[in-house]
């Protein structure tokens, strides 16, 4: 059975490394400030006690005030998982750092989020529309999308 | 019953007699000769066409049964008219010439493909006295004339202005030319034993025992090489449907496509007849007349072709080439050498106890030689995918000037 990592404990651990990186920690997720996302992800990936080598999925959710990025991380060695979240503000050019440098599995998924949600991933090597054609206007998974 | 066994020569004689009596005396003998020649050519040219229809029907039905389904069974009783329906369909289809093709070469290619195949049927003996021409270099003629097909396939692929067709053409050139060599040298074994290239005499030589018994290795080499020559599975790389759509005839439609199909199946039929003639004592056989025996053998060999097609996956181009150059070619040389020694030692015909010896020698040689292929993968150097592999592949080739 995959166990949920103790959010309280992990957030304290992260706080020690990166003060004021954690915005919120409740339920089964840790909400991070987007500036620290890449660092914390790198920390989660490299720390042997965490060893979160597997990025299960990258999800973008449009909460109208902000976009929320949800990262499901799993460790095969310890069989535990954690959910990292971060927020991107603004409708015009929301952006978060890309995690492709840490997990190759993020490449296609981040492209998908960029295509359908319009969130820019800074540092992505090939950020291009994936499902829709290049000249498509708008991002259909946004709540205010009304049709092309 | 005599007419039944000697049907075609007797028919020819009777027709000639009728012509001589019916025509006025002022008509000279060469005219009758010409008319008769044209008529027999007509028969010979139509023979592969009718035979191909039967083969297409047989292939589709057999493939169906191999795959646990029925196959075509809608047109006519047991679907026997399916090839006719196919032919009508293909002849009435629009003949599309795509933009940007080399028109002349594109249009000539099917003709260049089909003609040599039809010529091949001229020298095959269908019975003791049933043949169009009794060439004393018959087998050489067949191999030489069908080699023209390589050019036709290349013409078709090159002129199509299609990348898939180009891939098919390039593969054709590499594959077909390579397999000519083991094919020829395997035939050499037969020629060494019989001492003749005349197909009638080769058949006459096998009246007691078929040559496959004295040439088991040669037969295997010939069969594999001919599978490759005829683009049959597992060597059907020229038209590998899962890789390059239809290979060299991707852009062809209508009757031009039909001519490629016809040529392919006619070649299959012709070469099945050659296999029967060279190794399975041709038209010889008890009971039935020669021409029927030959067709029984042809369809039996064709059935084996269908069987392999139904079972085997396809090889890759470099493996196909490796098979030709590293496996079949040395084997065929060994085969000729062993045969030559046997023929020199037993001048007055090979003794029968050589049959098991030959089979053992053949199996042993195959078992030894296949190690050189390294097809199992364990001994091959493992190269990872991605850029590293590309670098390994792109390393400089050739001697250089060190």
């Amino acid at each position, binding site marked *: 059975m995959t166990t949920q990592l103790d959010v309280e404990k992990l957030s304290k651990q992260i706080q020690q490394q990166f003060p004021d990186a954690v915005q919120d920690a409740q339920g089964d997720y840790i909400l991070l400030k987007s500036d620290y996302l890449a660092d914390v992800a790198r920390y989660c990936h490299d720390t042997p006690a965490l060893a979160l080598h597997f990025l299960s999925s990258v999800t973008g959710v449009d909460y109208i005030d902000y976009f929320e990025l949800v990262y499901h991380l799993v460790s095969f060695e310890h069989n535990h998982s954690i959910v990292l979240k971060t927020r991107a503000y603004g409708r015009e050019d929301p952006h978060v750092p890309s995690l492709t440098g840490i997990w190759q599995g993020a490449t296609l998924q981040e492209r998908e989020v960029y295509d359908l949600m319009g969130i820019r991933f800074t540092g992505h090597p090939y950020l291009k529309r994936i499902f829709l054609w290049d000249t498509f206007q708008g991002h259909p998974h946004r709540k205010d999308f009304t049709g092309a | 019953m005599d007419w039944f066994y000697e049907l075609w020569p007797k028919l020819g004689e009777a027709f000639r007699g009728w012509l001589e009596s019916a025509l006025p005396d002022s008509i000279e003998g060469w005219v009758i000769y010409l008319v008769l020649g044209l008529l027999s050519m007509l028969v010979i040219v139509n023979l592969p066409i009718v035979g191909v229809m039967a083969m297409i029907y047989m292939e589709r039905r*057999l493939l*169906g*049964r*191999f*795959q*646990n*389904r*029925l196959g075509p*069974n809608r047109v006519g009783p047991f679907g026997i008219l399916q090839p006719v329906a196919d032919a009508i369909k293909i002849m009435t289809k629009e003949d599309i010439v795509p933009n940007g093709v080399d028109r002349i070469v594109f249009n000539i290619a099917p003709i260049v493909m089909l003609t040599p195949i039809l010529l091949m049927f001229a020298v095959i003996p269908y019975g003791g006295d049933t043949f169009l021409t009794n060439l004393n270099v018959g087998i050489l003629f067949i191999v030489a004339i069908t080699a023209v097909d390589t050019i036709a396939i290349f013409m078709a692929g090159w002129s199509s202005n299609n990348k898939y067709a180009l891939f098919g053409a390039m593969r054709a050139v590499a594959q077909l030319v390579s397999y000519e060599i083991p094919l020829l040298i395997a035939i050499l074994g037969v020629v060494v034993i019989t001492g003749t290239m005349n197909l009638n005499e080769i058949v006459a030589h096998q009246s007691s025992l078929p040559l496959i018994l004295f040439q088991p290795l040669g037969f295997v080499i010939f069969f594999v090489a001919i599978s490759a020559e005829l683009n049959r599975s597992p060597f059907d790389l020229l038209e590998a449907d899962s890789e390059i759509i239809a290979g060299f005839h991707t852009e062809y439609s209508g009757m031009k496509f039909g001519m490629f199909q016809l040529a392919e199946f006619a070649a299959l039929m012709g070469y099945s007849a050659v296999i029967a003639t060279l190794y399975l004592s041709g038209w010889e056989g008890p009971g039935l007349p020669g021409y029927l025996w030959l067709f029984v053998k042809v369809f039996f060999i064709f059935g084996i072709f269908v*069987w*392999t097609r*139904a*079972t*085997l996956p396809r090889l890759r181009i470099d493996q196909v080439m490796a098979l030709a150059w590293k496996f079949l070619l040395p084997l065929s040389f060994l085969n000729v050498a062993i045969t030559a020694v046997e023929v020199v030692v037993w001048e007055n015909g090979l003794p029968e106890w050589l049959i098991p010896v030959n089979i053992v020698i053949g199996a042993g040689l*195959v*078992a030894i030689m*296949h190690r050189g*292929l390294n*097809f199992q993968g364990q001994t091959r150097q493992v190269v990872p995918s991605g850029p590293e592999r590309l670098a390994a592949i792109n390393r400089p080739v050739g001697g250089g000037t060190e």
Partner: protein
Amino acid sequence: MYGLGIAKGMIVTFKHLFRKPFTVQYPEEVVPRGSRFRGYEFTWYEDRCTGCASCAKYCPLGTINIVTHPEGDPKQGMDYAIDIFDIDTGRCMFCGLCVEACPYEAIQAGGPLDDATYDFESLYRDKHKLTEMAQEHLHGHDFTYPNGKQAPQPDEKPLHIGLPVERDRTR
């Protein structure tokens, strides 16, 4: 030795040569459908329908169009008369949610496969067409619904509460 694996495979295919083909020839032989088969013939039984429009609400594609008006004597139980009941079978994806939604089992799935048509028009089935199909089914199946229950005979009262609805079967 090289070739043994190939020979094994050849034997397998050779065995199949003598097996009975698995396929059946469709028009002559029809594989029997299961009793829950969700086929083209959506049958709707007006005699069971109360006009609650549950099916229309459940349909993910909105292929069911239903218009009703209240009718009948309140003393004998109020009823809805069905003005329009259309199913656009051309858009239907046969998920069976409407069948599950109906509390009176008035709409039922099932039927044969050979219901192909040449135009989309005939896939749009209105109340009359649906009733026609339902009657055809009932007459062909000894007045049994696809779900196995007994339907009322033509002279009997419909099952739902209230008075029998005036049916226009002549179209």
